[in-house]
């Protein structure tokens, strides 16, 4: 669970999930839902005035890394957990060649220098599907196309041989044909290296394609969590349903699209009610009084929703009572 505060804005509020080795976990939501802050928190990249609530923990390899000092964090950044950002141009330094930047990572994390580092950099570029790597390694980022840049960034991340790869909207800035290439590449690399991937995106299509499990975020909270197939086949939380229905192409063309009225709120106080209630078509009185907690929606223990409508087999009163009791004893 993370709990970041930025001028008392609970950008990420009581979020819990795990990632298994070789698994891809999706984190999906609209802008401002807290996806990227979650990712930055994992890598210890939340800067003042933001901070991680001391009651939170992030466990990696059996240790709580929120308690790490900066130098201890250095030892897992890259080597343990690496991250790929949305915009490859802002990740790459424009005044150094692509080869130099990969070599820098190699020298910091693997102790390789000189010709050995150059050779390894070329291998890495080949591994991420860049042809003529021996020449490319001497070029600058501006000489690469958008897709090639993202490949180079992936090569840099792989230079440290990480176990977990956090991909923050890695294909959002790319065209669809290039996006398809990058997704293929990431899935290939995952299979080869048994990587665990945390894949962050706003695109439900991309998430359906890459993820094994999906967490849907809204206003800093995970509102629904399930393996990918039940999530898309039978979404339970009213927000997930609305989100999926507002995607064009899922309904007859020319018709009006279903919308979620209103705007995403800023979570500037601890949750004392359901944050989606003001926009929810199914909201009832208790929704504005009780903060729902993640609850198994039915028989599948892996399918949770934070909504007072669940568990589905309980009456509304029973369900509300359960959320109220769990909420008191639990996170907040």
């Amino acid at each position, binding site marked *: 669970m993370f709990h970041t505060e930025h001028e008392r804005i609970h950008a990420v509020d009581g979020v819990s999930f795990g990632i298994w080795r070789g698994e891809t976990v999706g984190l999906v939501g609209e802008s401002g839902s807290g996806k990227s802050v979650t990712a930055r928190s994992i890598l210890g990249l939340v800067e003042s005035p933001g901070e991680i609530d001391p009651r939170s923990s992030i466990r990696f390899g059996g240790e709580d890394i929120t308690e790490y000092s900066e130098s201890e964090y250095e030892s897992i950044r890259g080597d343990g957990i690496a991250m790929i950002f949305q915009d490859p141009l802002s990740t790459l330094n424009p005044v150094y060649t692509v080869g130099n930047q990969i070599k820098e990572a190699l020298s910091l994390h693997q102790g390789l220098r000189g010709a050995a580092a150059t050779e390894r950099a070329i291998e890495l570029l080949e591994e991420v599907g860049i042809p003529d790597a021996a020449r490319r390694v001497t*070029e600058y980022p501006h000489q690469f196309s958008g897709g090639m840049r993202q490949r180079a960034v992936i090569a840099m991340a792989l230079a440290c041989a990480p176990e977990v790869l956090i991909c923050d909207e890695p294909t959002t800035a790319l065209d*669809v*044909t290039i996006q*398809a290439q990058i997704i293929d590449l990431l899935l290939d690399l995952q299979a080869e290296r048994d990587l665990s991937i945390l894949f962050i995106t706003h695109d*439900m299509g991309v998430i359906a394609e890459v993820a094994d499990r999906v967490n849907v975020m809204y206003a800093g909270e995970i509102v629904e969590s399930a393996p990918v197939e039940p999530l898309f086949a039978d979404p339970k939380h009213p927000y997930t349903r609305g989100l999926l229905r507002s995607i064009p192409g899922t309904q007859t063309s020319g018709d009006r*699209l279903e919308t979620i*009225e209103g705007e*995403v709120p800023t979570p500037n106080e601890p949750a004392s009610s359901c944050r989606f209630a003001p926009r929810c078509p199914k909201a009832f009185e208790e929704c504005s009084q009780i903060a729902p907690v993640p609850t198994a929606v039915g028989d599948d223990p892996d399918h949770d929703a934070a909504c007072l409508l669940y568990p589905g087999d309980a009456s509304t009163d029973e369900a509300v009572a359960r959320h109220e009791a769990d909420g008191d004893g639990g996170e907040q």
Partner: protein
Amino acid sequence: MSDGRRPSTGTASDSAGGPGTDGGDGDDVLLSVRGLKTHYEERSLFGGDPVRAVDGVSFDVREGETLGLVGESGCGKTTLGRTLVRLEEATDGDVVVDDTDVTSLAGDDLKRWRRDAQIVFQDPESSLNDRLTVGEIVREPLDVHDWKTPEARRQRVRDLLERVGLREEHYYRYPHQFSGGQRQRVGIARALAVEPDFVVLDEPVSALDVSVQAQILNLLMDLQEDLGLTYLFIAHDLSVVRHICDRVAVMYLGKIMEFGPTERLFTEPQNPYTRSLLSAVPTPDPTVERDRTVLRGTPPSPRDPPDGCVFSTRCPAKIRPDGFEELSEGDWEAIEVFREVLRERSRTDPSLSERARELLGFETRLPDIDEAADELFADRSFSSDVRQPIRRSIEAANDGDEDRASEIVAVTLGSVCDRERPSLLATDQADGARSSRCHRHREEHADPDAVDRRGPRP
């Protein structure tokens, strides 16, 4: 724009009466584009080739329709939209409205066209002036065109704000006080202020979250119905285009590759590029078995388009030369990637320091291509009619002559796709004329399953 609707059918270059030219089924044509070209840096200081952003495009826009313009970044779709509303100057060709070519308008005539044709921009963050109130922003076009009295203008702005789903009290607020979706509503109100007939929507929802996007798309469809607007809808998001457009033009490297009614184009795409583009779109359904064609590489530079078909460097259905039909997919792929490497090498601009070294007589050769060639061909066993030209090509490249190296492979292993520009062929006369630009549509090369069969790499 109420009389003299049918424009003279111009006989401009490249497929006069090409895609979407009115097949005579009675729909009124609002705007007729013929052989339109927009090039940048035509006469630049250092010479060199111009950027052929839009390179010979012809189509009609029918009154009241939504015509979609899709393609990847750099394909020229935005430049085309901007050229139609005269934000860019056309290099060649006509845009005919009411028997008048708007590309050559000036003075009062141009001002009138700029009232009749409006544009909504992609990024609501940068397309609104942050120092003006929302009311002033929406009122600006009314002031520019000297619309009625100041009092009438204010009332019009209030009506417009309400029409696009904002409130009257928003008049005195500034853009930064609004969310992305609301700002885009302001952009739409501004475009509609002077009662245009034709609106270019340049990626109007691509900067917005999906739930907000749906609100804006609904608004655009309502406005079109109520005000009888004609839209040119530019987008890279194919599902949005499928939802909102009546007909679609697919662009690649400055040219229209396929044109047709939306539903048919999406369900039975005819051009290999359209097929590949559609197959790359992720569907929000994890159970769908993906049999996708992943295109290799990136689109070539519009400064230096391929000699033959513009899509030939990436096409999964490229026609093979006679005698090479039996080569495996992997072998062809390796040859195509090798050609891409050569093209990339010949395109590399020498940096200033490299130029200086050259002037001083230092050697500035690229690293030998052997390593790249090894990587590609190491575990392939080619027959001698493939091996020979590749070896000669590698030698030429190592001598520093990439152009000759490319030439050798093109002559021996290239096909009609590398040599001839395909023209847009009418592929279906019924139901509003479909057309597609591909050599595969010629009888001698017809192999409709080529793309499906080849599909993903082995």
